[in-house]
């Protein structure tokens, strides 16, 4: 298998109001190359925390990541797309996309940066807006720029934290198709936190469902349909229903297994 990420039994404890609170309890999961995996679960269950640990923005308190006893995933090659308000408002679209490439660790010449930025502008169909400032863009366009900016650093895994939930339904579907399109062109693995079962079934190869706090993996569902998925197909609708019920059941810990 082309495993790109293997997480074994990571746990995370938060200090909250002078008491310790377990946010994540022995979560294990694997991601393989070029797949789209959605992470779901009841709200507040710690989905985002799992994502932040993989991104290196947070550290786990125990567990094994990629065979090493890392509790920090700093050197894993990932990039993160946030829900909203993540573009640098003082930089143009092109400058935002090139941001990561201009960091010292990347050693890119200005010519390489420009070349890469043009490619990505084309990939997310934002060429016309290269010089626009973020506040001049619609919500959907901003997220396309945020995706392009994360892809610029050529991450093995693109982490997305509810990337489309602030968008209207039409832009959301457009962005979802964008993800499928990018996956078709690039080898990137997508790991997406979402609270929308329909979105998960539309996008993912696999859906990982967490229980409520402290989060453990409740179930993994492989989505058997080929792309593009027909969202009015009764089988697809049934699966969406099934996923929804699993998440609801995950709220009561007694029902696990």
């Amino acid at each position, binding site marked *: 298998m082309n495993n790109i990420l293997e997480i074994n039994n990571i746990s995370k404890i938060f200090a909250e109001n002078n008491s310790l609170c377990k946010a994540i309890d022995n979560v294990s999961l694997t991601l393989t190359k070029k797949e789209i995996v959605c992470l779901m679960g009841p709200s507040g269950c710690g989905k985002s925390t799992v994502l932040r640990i993989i*991104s*290196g*923005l947070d550290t786990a308190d125990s567990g094994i990541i990629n065979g090493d006893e890392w509790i920090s995933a700093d050197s894993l090659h*990932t*990039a*993160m797309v*946030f829900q909203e*308000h*993540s*573009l*640098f*408002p*003082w*930089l143009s679209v092109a400058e935002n996309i090139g*941001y*990561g490439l*201009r*960091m*010292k*660790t*990347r050693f890119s010449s200005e010519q390489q940066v420009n070349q890469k930025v043009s490619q990505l502008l084309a990939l997310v169909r934002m060429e016309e807006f290269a010089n626009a*400032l*973020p*506040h001049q863009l619609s919500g959907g366009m901003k997220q396309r720029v945020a995706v392009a*900016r*994360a892809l*610029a*650093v050529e991450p093995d895994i693109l982490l997305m934290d509810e990337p489309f939930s602030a968008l209207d339904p039409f832009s959301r579907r457009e962005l979802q198709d964008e993800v499928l399109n990018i996956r078709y062109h690039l080898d990137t693995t997508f790991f997406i936190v979402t609270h929308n079962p329909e979105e998960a079934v539309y996008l993912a190869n696999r859906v990982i469902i967490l229980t409520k706090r402290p989060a453990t993996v409740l179930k993994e569902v492989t989505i058997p349909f080929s792309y593009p998925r027909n969202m009015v197909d009764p089988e697809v609708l049934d699966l969406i229903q099934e996923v929804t019920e699993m998440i609801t059941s995950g709220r009561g810990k007694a029902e696990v297994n």
Partner: protein
Amino acid sequence: MKRLHKIKRGIALPVTIVIIWEILSLNIGNSFILPGWELIVPVLIHPMDSLFGGASLFENGVISLERVLIGFLLATVIAVPLGLLSGWSERVDEYFNPLIQILRPVPPIAWMPLAIAWFKIGFGSLIFIIFIGSFFPVLISTVEGVHNVRIRWLEVAESLGATTKEKFVTVIIPGALPFIWTGFRLAFGVGWMCLVAAEMLPGTSAGLGYLIMYAYNLGQIQVIVAGMIVIGIIGIVSDYLFRCGQTRFFDWQGKE
């Protein structure tokens, strides 16, 4: 049309005051108390003419502006880096904040006796007063600006591989800049007011504050009024320029 009405309403009160002023001045008939506009306007429309055998209105204005600019620039050169560090590092803030809170409420003019003791009457003490007046608005706005930089922006930068130093240069500074600019605008206004007040103290020999005080000693009230108008105009114009800069460079602020 709407704009025209707005302008009309805006000038209604000043015009009324000028008219009442003129009527009162004709009734009082004493230009040592209330000079008529026929005396004030000539001073204003001949700004290059020497006054009382010394520097002209224009020259005095330039001298005052130069002083404010020097004091203001000195203040920003120190306040901006200190504010950036203080906003970024809690430890630096813990060192500086108590001292700043103690010194901040002291009116800049209250420093005048010390300023004279340390720098003698004249250029040095005036620059010092403007420095004190401009320093705190810039410092406080800069700290505020750093605190207003979104955590999200820093996380994005980190996720894209920025080092701490790079985060500081590429996120903290540009993110705080609109606030810093507002600090500049406030500081220049305060500096200007402090300067004119300081120039009126005994011992100075040039500047708009000096000019109006000197005119008072000579009983030339029309020069005082003309000088006050020029002081006001310079204040308005500089504020307007800062506001233009704000819309030109920081149009993105608050629009996301």
